[in-house]
């Protein structure tokens, strides 16, 4: 299906540029100008992808982005399992995000663990008119009575909170005092703040800093003895168990993981993190803020890593080991060697079925670059990629370490643009979200959800790569795609773009 193999790189670039110009024609002039800055054809050797990012979405274009509340409650806070996260405001936001992200955890749900419950203040008109602080007081009392084993509470602000002048910080302080210094965290992640989920990540990170780190009593005895090998996993939300299939590798190389941020994480783990010797950071976009803070305040170095696909995993294990002594470095080599036969077998099985297949991606803030290596391990090629809420530093990383010359880059893509790009480029696979999935499947293009792993996973680590490879094969080589056209309707395919 792919057209790219037969063309030279210059042809591809020219074609992609023409395609972008064509797509932009649909817009009113002002919008075309704005959108043009977010789309580009990557030139190898450049330090970034040449697109603007982290700017307001254009109204009415069908952006795929979400909001700050989604970034805070949905991504950062929601997975912390022994705390109760109140969706503060009307019922909707909490309802739609209820248990939708597959942050796996172990615990007795509703008793000492609360990830897949939807706690909401269900604002009514009177709460909007008279303010919701009184209600919040009462909600916290009721939580304390009915869910006594919760270890903390966070208040995740929905749009109205910041507009009606509620003082959730004051309520948090009063209630914390009343309950013997209980951790109660107000988070100002109203959906209208910022331009996407991204500011919500930042606000959530800052809330951890201000309401957890800064409130740690200096004289609190540590819960465990430190070792020189203590690390924290930062920015892994344990989707389908990703953090678990990552943790196992770090532990096998002799490190000790003292905290997971935030998939399957607990308040105690957050509190213990300033004791880590190294923070290893997977999702840079959503948790670089707290990593930098810990570096400045506690002197903890941090190191980005990538656990998608054997090439990147081995590179990452060595990079992490580089922060430690020879014992760890040797153990890292042993881990890589141990899993080599499994990786060889996975690649032997799936690569012949996937070799040369092309992929277009559009995900959040990390995966549009991070998964490229895993596809390449399978002989596949990413021909277009873009982010919902990346910043320029993400596009720099993408340009310098991941994408190939001529790749189409699209930031905050619109429904229309994405459809047209896929229609014209005809990749063998699209990886994006639930809102996009069925659009492309209708077009007959194989698709995998790359936020939720399409209800599969884990995809991180060696164990996860086996599942990743199997899933990509299953998507692309499913017999269903041969049936999309009724036999009496099949017309000989035009030779695609060349003919245009």
């Amino acid at each position, binding site marked *: 299906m792919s057209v790219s193999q037969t063309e030279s790189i210059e042809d591809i670039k020219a074609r992609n540029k023409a395609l972008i110009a064509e797509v932009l024609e649909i817009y009113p002039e002002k919008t075309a100008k704005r959108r043009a800055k977010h789309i580009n054809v990557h030139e190898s050797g450049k330090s970034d992808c040449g697109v603007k990012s982290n700017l307001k979405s254009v*109204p009415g274009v069908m952006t795929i982005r979400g909001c700050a509340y989604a970034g805070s409650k949905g991504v950062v806070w929601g997975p912390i399992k022994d705390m109760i996260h109140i969706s503060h405001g*009307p019922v909707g936001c909490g309802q739609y995000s209820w248990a939708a992200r597959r942050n796996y955890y172990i615990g007795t749900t509703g008793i000492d663990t609360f990830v897949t419950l939807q706690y909401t203040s269900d604002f009514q008109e009177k709460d909007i008119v008279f303010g919701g602080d009184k209600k919040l007081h*009462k909600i916290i009392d009721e939580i304390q009575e009915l869910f006594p084993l919760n270890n903390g509470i966070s208040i995740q602000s929905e749009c109205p909170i910041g507009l009606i002048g509620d003082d959730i910080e004051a309520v948090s302080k009063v209630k914390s005092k009343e309950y013997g210094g209980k951790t109660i965290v107000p988070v100002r992640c109203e959906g209208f703040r910022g331009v996407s989920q991204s500011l919500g990540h930042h606000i959530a990170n800052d809330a951890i800093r201000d309401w957890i780190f800064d409130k740690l009593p200096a004289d609190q005895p540590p819960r465990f003895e430190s070792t020189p090998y203590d690390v924290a996993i930062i920015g892994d939300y344990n989707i389908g168990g990703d953090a678990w299939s990552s943790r196992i590798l770090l532990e096998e190389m002799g490190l000790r993981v003292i905290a997971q941020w935030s998939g399957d994480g*607990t308040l105690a783990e957050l509190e213990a993190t300033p004791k880590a010797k190294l923070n290893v950071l997977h999702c840079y976009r959503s948790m670089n803020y707290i990593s930098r803070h810990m570096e400045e305040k506690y002197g903890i170095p941090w190191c980005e890593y990538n656990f998608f696909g054997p090439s990147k995993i081995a590179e990452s294990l060595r990079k992490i080991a580089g922060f430690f002594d020879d014992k760890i470095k040797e153990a890292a080599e042993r881990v890589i060697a141990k899993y080599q036969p499994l990786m060889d077998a996975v690649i032997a099985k799936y690569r012949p079925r996937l070799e040369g297949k092309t992929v277009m991606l559009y995900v959040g803030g990390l995966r549009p670059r991070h998964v490229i290596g895993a596809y390449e391990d399978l002989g596949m090629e990413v021909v277009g990629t873009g982010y919902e809420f990346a910043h320029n530093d993400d596009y720099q990383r993408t340009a310098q370490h991941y994408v190939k010359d001529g790749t189409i880059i699209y930031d905050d893509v619109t*429904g229309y643009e994405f459809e047209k790009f896929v229609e014209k480029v005809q990749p063998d696979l699209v990886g994006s979200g639930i809102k996009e999935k069925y659009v492309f499947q*209708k077009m007959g293009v194989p698709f995998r959800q790359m936020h939720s792993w399409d209800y599969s996973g884990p995809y991180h680590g060696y164990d996860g790569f086996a599942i990743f490879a199997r899933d990509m094969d299953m998507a692309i080589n499913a017999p269903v795609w041969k049936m999309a056209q009724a036999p009496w309707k099949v017309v000989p395919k035009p030779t695609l773009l060349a003919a245009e």
Partner: protein
Amino acid sequence: MTQNADNVLDHFELFRGPEYQQMLANKQALFENRRDPAEVERIREWTKTPEYREANFAREALTVNPAKACQPLGAVFVAVGFEKTIPFVHGSQGCVAYYRSHFSRHFKEPTSCVSSSMTEDAAVFGGLNNMIDGLANTYSMYKPKMIAVSTTCMAEVIGDDLNAFIKTSKEKGSVPEEFDVPFAHTPAFVGSHITGYDNAMKGVLEHFWDGKARTVPALERVPNESINFLGGFDGYTVGNLREIKRIFDMMGVEYTILGDNSDVWDTPTDGEFRMYDGGTTLEEASNAVHAKATISMQEFCTEKTLPFIANHGHETVAFNHPVGVAGTDRFLMEVARITGKEIPEELTKERGRLVDAIADSSAHIHGKKFAIYGDPDMCLGLAAFLLELGAEPTHVLATNGNKAWAQKMQELFDSSPFGANCHVYPGKDLWHMRSLLFTEPVDFLIGNTYGKYLDRDTGTPLIRIGFPIFDRHHHHRRPVWGYQGGMNVLITILDKIFDTIDLNTNVPGKTDYSFDIIR
């Protein structure tokens, strides 16, 4: 090593391997600061008690696991049911991402909807510019025939005036003057998704019938023989509307389905993405004013729309999501009465088949106790069906049910000897339901996907009927209305009953004397 290439293990098997189990146990013991397991157990048991139930029901402020969503969701549901119409939700954009995801997870279909993407500056200055630019962009990109506007919390709290904004946008040339932009204010802090359905449907009809925001003369009603049909917010809309059309066609009824989203949420995979498909045409929406009567399948979804229509001189009739024999009888007889058409023999036969099926199976349902939760009308319809099966709808709960609904439900209980020990719970949530299931256990639970948590905690087998259904596929393609719909509901209930008996009788040498092959 647990994983292997020949037989790739998924998450549900992988993490049961010994390495992972050891790893997770260490994590828990060393770093999580977990509560004492005995204490966890004690609290778990305590949550099952009548004392806990009392405290739980005394809640005044906290909502846990509600069975309702917010207004704009209902507005989007309505909008996509009109020909080439795109829903445009004015306010912050995150909400729209949620509505689209929510519907796509249920229908396994795309849901197109745009936002005016208001951010902090719009919170200060209002969202007029977002509306002006947004309408212009949507219009030129997606070439709709109509843009149906609703609002998120944000726009409502700052008080944006849709009527004025749309007018200004038209003046600024965002869309042509005569282009249809019906609107509805849909504040999420009032009512629920069914309120949003009501407001949005009324908004569309008002637009077409009452002079398009005073830009053209109001339509003059010239009564004809046609009837209008309103389905209400309905997770089975694809199957149900097709069934209703089949029934109307069999009867020879002239009809207009207002908000027909049965095609747009059931498009084929044939190489083409249809952003729009089917739907009530704008002409039909206008002409609907001339109908002799309007039928609403869900009274509580049309509390404002029906009186609005009645004010235009229609006879209006409301049902409560009829399921089963008597409910369908009433529905068909009303249609026959209004239209003067006869109920054809074929439908009488279908009725007979449903009665036949009930007769065959009733021994397995009779006397069984059920808990039901969902939208108000669906609860009424399902409870009525259970009563005619000789079952007891012991607990009926609707988070978005009001007093009038509770009263109606009570009247239904009172109408049947099987309703004697049944109770209705308006405005309660699924954490209340959890207490009910522990303190007054029932045999089966009927509800949407979230009910699986209640199934897990209380051991009450869940029969999935409702919205949303995320974790089972394609249920929305089957009707639950009409006699055939009743048949589907009956089979769904029976399957779960038999599966449950099998699960309880499958221990070899212990319980499997009852592991029968004939039932």
